[in-house]
């Protein structure tokens, strides 16, 4: 986790839950506590802690793998597009690349969610270039067609892995 945002470092705590998985939590600037339990099975629980009793959760929302990916895309993709404008091109440790979807790619004709790009490689798909147009911040259910080009952002290794995954 590298929460490098506008200068303030967020403090994300990681706790092992033996036999269950991992818990990450942090406090928002407004003073609310949020967390995520990652089960070994891949299930994710989104936690909103109680104001009155900060040791307990007011809400526990169970998310399947797909739902968690969708939420991550919703929260992450829009932010990244925002950043791109600021960052322009290359920053150390960050790679931006254009990956073509060839007709032989295992994911041609399937949805972005199927690639699990974010959970498998940590790479975000920030836009799809299709024909003359572009689909900025595509949602996970958007399909990938042969001939598309994906604009992706991640670590250099993650981008390389994704490129192999997509058969580019």
């Amino acid at each position, binding site marked *: 986790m590298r929460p490098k945002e506008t200068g303030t470092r967020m403090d994300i705590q990681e706790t092992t839950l*033996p036999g269950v998985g991992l818990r990450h939590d942090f406090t928002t600037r407004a003073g609310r506590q949020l967390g995520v339990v990652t089960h070994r099975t891949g299930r994710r629980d989104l*936690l909103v802690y109680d104001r009155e009793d900060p040791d307990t*959760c007011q809400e526990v929302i169970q998310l399947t793998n797909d739902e968690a990916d969708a939420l991550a895309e919703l929260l992450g993709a829009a932010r990244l597009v925002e950043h791109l404008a600021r960052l322009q091109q290359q920053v150390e440790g960050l790679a931006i690349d254009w990956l073509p979807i060839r007709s032989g790619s295992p994911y041609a004709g399937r949805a972005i969610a199927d690639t699990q790009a974010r959970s498998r490689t940590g790479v975000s798909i920030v836009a799809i270039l299709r024909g003359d147009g572009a689909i900025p911040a595509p949602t996970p259910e958007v399909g990938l067609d042969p001939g598309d080009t994906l604009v992706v952002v991640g670590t250099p290794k993650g981008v390389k892995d994704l490129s192999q995954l997509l058969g580019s």
Partner: protein
Amino acid sequence: MHGAAVLLELGGVILGLGILGRLAGRFGLSAIPLYLLAGLAFGEGGLLPLVTTQEFIEVGAEVGVILLLLLLGLEYSASELLGSLRAAAPAGLVDLVLNFTPGLVGGLLLGWSPLAAVVLGGVTYVTSSGIAAKVLGDLGRLGNRETPVVLSILVVEDLAMAAYLPLVTGLLVGGGLLASALPVGVALVTVALVLVVAVRYGETLSRLVFSSNSEVLLLVILGLALVVAGLAQQLQVSTAVGAFLVGIALSGEAAEAAHDLLTPLRDLFAAVFFVFFGLQTDPRSMRPVALAAAVLAVVTAVTKMVTGWWAARRVGVGPRGRWRAGTALVARGEFSIVIAGLAVTAGREPALGPLATAYVLILAVLGPILARASEPLRAALTTAVTAVAGRRSARRPAGGWSPRGP
């Protein structure tokens, strides 16, 4: 005709257990006490004694213990175990002292042999990790701050079992303390050795065992666990520990896939195991020990709550969380029965089986109820304590005082 009778009887038992499990689920209770009651009803002196399927149930019960422990081992990796041990050692020690002692003292007060008292100490010591984990999940407490504490205490108890079970097995077989020193020593060395190997070579072993074909994986892992359990019994290390160690040694992909594959099998055979334990107990023998079981249950419910309360306070959890941690630990279940089963099989202390049955019946029911009611319980007790304190002191601090502060 014999075949039909066996099928009818076995089918009837399993169907009955299914209906009982459904009933328990409706009330948010553990099914373990109902299975035990079913066993009591089917046994000698019960309502519907079984005739033809005793033998099958006996073997099934043994497989049930092995699967219970194998799956428990699969839940944790060796490094997770050692990590929890380091973090929760003080809490684990308090847990051991507070909850082993009542059983030990109770057994001696009942005039039992020291060995039988040690077994009873084990029965009162172990929280049912199955019931506790289910309660935490059902009540949406996995994200709570006190939950890691509760889970680490459960892990330390499970590890303690890896030393305790071979010890007791050895003592039960060996007779005297001196005569059994050698087998017990052998057992403990084996356990330590396997743990070291599991930490070092767990990944290699898992890769060797893993197969993407679920049928093959199921057969290989089940077979491996049974063979190791059998070898463990030959060494007098206790079959359960053998299976537990196999579970620990497997990790990663193999462990996860095996966990999913074996869970339904475990559920079936564990139910058979509880029924079998009930079968061995004559319901009429429970009346004389009922009072002792009730007293022991109340005392050890309180000591477990103190354990959880203290452990949660140690990591800075607030009063409500401390109560939640305490009540979550109260339930006793599968392992208390596994431990008592060792002594029953060895034919020691005839009152131990009935006492353990009654004890688990009480706490397996009471545990989840207390866990649900932890907040009203805390509130009631706090008001009672403040009322008493208010009456005692001349000034009254009771007004706006809350134990949590702002």
